[in-house]
Every structure is written in structure tokens, then in C-alpha cells.
């Protein structure tokens, strides 16, 4: 799961992840998406850029 907040500054960034993922998968430039989502600081930007979602891989195993 995407962390609820940015590790460094504490801004809530998890709310932006769904839209980020959707738009990134359509091939949009991540820089543009992050600017649009109002993530200004690079600490928050790396949270989305470097996240790897593994919940779907874990879910079948309890």
C-alpha cells in the first residue's frame, strides 16, 4: 500500500496515488502529473515515483 504520508515532510500523498497511477499508465509524463497534483517538494514526489504496489501479490496469502 502507498504510505499514507510523505516520509519526510508529512504531507498526505496517498490520496494522489490512484490518479497518478492511472495517468502514468496512459503514458503521461510523470513530471506533468505531479505538478498537476500539487506535489511541489521532491520528498513528496519521490513517494509516488518510487512506489511499488505489492498488495495484489500479497492478497491471496493471508
Amino acid at each position, binding site marked *: *500500500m502507498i504510505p*499514507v504520508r510523505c516520509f519526510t515532510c*508529512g*504531507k498526505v500523498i496517498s490520496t494522489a496515488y490512484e490518479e497518478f497511477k492511472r495517468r502514468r499508465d496512459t503514458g503521461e509524463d510523470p513530471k506533468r502529473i505531479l505538478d498537476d497534483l500539487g506535489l511541489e*517538494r521532491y520528498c513528496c514526489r519521490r513517494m509516488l515515483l518510487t512506489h511499488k504496489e505489492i*498488495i*495484489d501479490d*500479497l*492478497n491471496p496469502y493471508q
Partner: protein
Amino acid sequence: MEIAFSVLDDQIARFRLDKSSIAFANSLRRAMIGEVPTMAIEDVKIYDNTSALFDEMLAHRIGLIPIKTEEECLIPRDTCSCGGIGCPSCSVLFTLSVEGPGMVTSKDLISQDPRIGPASPDIPVVKLIGGQKVVLEARAIVSRGREHAKWQPTTACGYKNYPVVTVNDRCDACGHCVEECPREILEIRDGRVAVIEGRLESCSLCRLCERACLNTGIGEEAGIIVRSDESRFLFVVEGDGSLPAKNIIRQGLDYIRTQSQGLAAQIYEISGETRDEND
């Protein structure tokens, strides 16, 4: 002391603090981060959790959700008449009960008190597949940022000194500093380098411009000199949604006032002097 706001909305405030000191600016910053009371979830009782996350992980994620606090609607638990057990005047109970498939989000946290709830409804907690289930009860209490970061009302909260950029006669308008400035605040105007109108506050005081100037072989002293004004500060206060930025600043200032009045009263008492009421 003077305050002039350039941005002020619920999320973020930017302002200039004039005729002040470093000590005061820093105490204001610390008061806003660590001394403004907010609500956050402290105790979680998990009745059922068959999701892929461990109970601890789930509780941790829920604790990080900012809770919108209506001012003074609750009192801190350690000063409450219930003696810290937890009662409706010092804590708020949330219940959450979701069955998969689907995403558990912060709006599934049902608050007992209609005035208090998650600051954003769309914070994902955990993703469930069919047959998985999360049932829990969470209790939010009032505390301060110095106790735990989840009670901080601010995310980015800080200040810098006001930049003072001066250009002297040594400048020959070669333009090296203009290229070097990462904030792009310099330009060549009337045969000299100058700060672009209205961009001065973006200066980060990095002094790369000075270095670039010295590297042109101008001599011992650069044509552009950046200093910081020790009595003026540029603040940025960004809230996490639990309190509007304006309240964070006001309550931070209130805290400094009550603390210093308390200290002054103590000192008067010790020294035995009578107090001048006009102070």
C-alpha cells in the same frame, strides 16, 4: 513586530515577519509544529482483520490519518476529569467495518461526533479482496506535536531570513551570475545586474551568484553581494488538513504569549517586585 501575508488559505499560509528576531521566529516555528493541539487516533481495538496487512501496520496507517479538529471541542486526556480512561469529553470513538472486495478508505471511519472526522475522505487504508474483512474501533485524542508527529498540525513549516541583494560598482554586467542563479531572479538592467521585480523573495540565499562572480576573476570582492536581514523572516506554514493555517498561526502565537506571561509572573514573584500593569 509586523506580519504581512502573501498567501492565506486553509491549506497554506506564507507571510513576512518584520521587526523581529531569530529567537522569536524560531520559537514561533517550534510552537506551531509542537505546541498546537490537534486530534489523532491513539488507540485501536481490532476485532477482525483478515487483510494482507498486519494489525500493527493497519493501526499505524489509521493513526496517520489527519483528523479535522474543531477548535476547543475536546480537552487533553491527561487533564480530563475521567483521569485518562477516555470519555466523550476527551476522546472520540470511530468505528470501521468493511468487507471486501474493495478499498478501505478514511471515509469508512465513522465518527461518533459529527464535528470531528478525517480531513480527507479518500485516504486508502488497505485493499481487500473478496472474503477479507476489517472490523475495528479507534479512539482519537487531543495532544501536541512534541508527543508524536501525528499530532503535528503542520507539514512544511519553516522560515528563512529575508534576502538582501546588493550590486556594487564592480559589476560589469557580464551576466555570469544571471545564468548561475537557480531561482532565476536576476537580470541585466541598465548596464548592471539587478533583481527582477517581485522575485526577490524567491532568493534561497545560496550565494551561487557571488561565487560565479568571483570565478570570473573580478578580484577579491564580488560585484553582487547577498546578505540576510536578521530582523525579517519569510515564513511558510502548510497544514495537514487538521486545522486551517490561520488557526495554527494564531494558536502558536497564543502559546508563546501564555508561556512568556507565565514566566514573567514567576520572575516577578521571585524578585518580589511589583508588576507594572502597562507592560
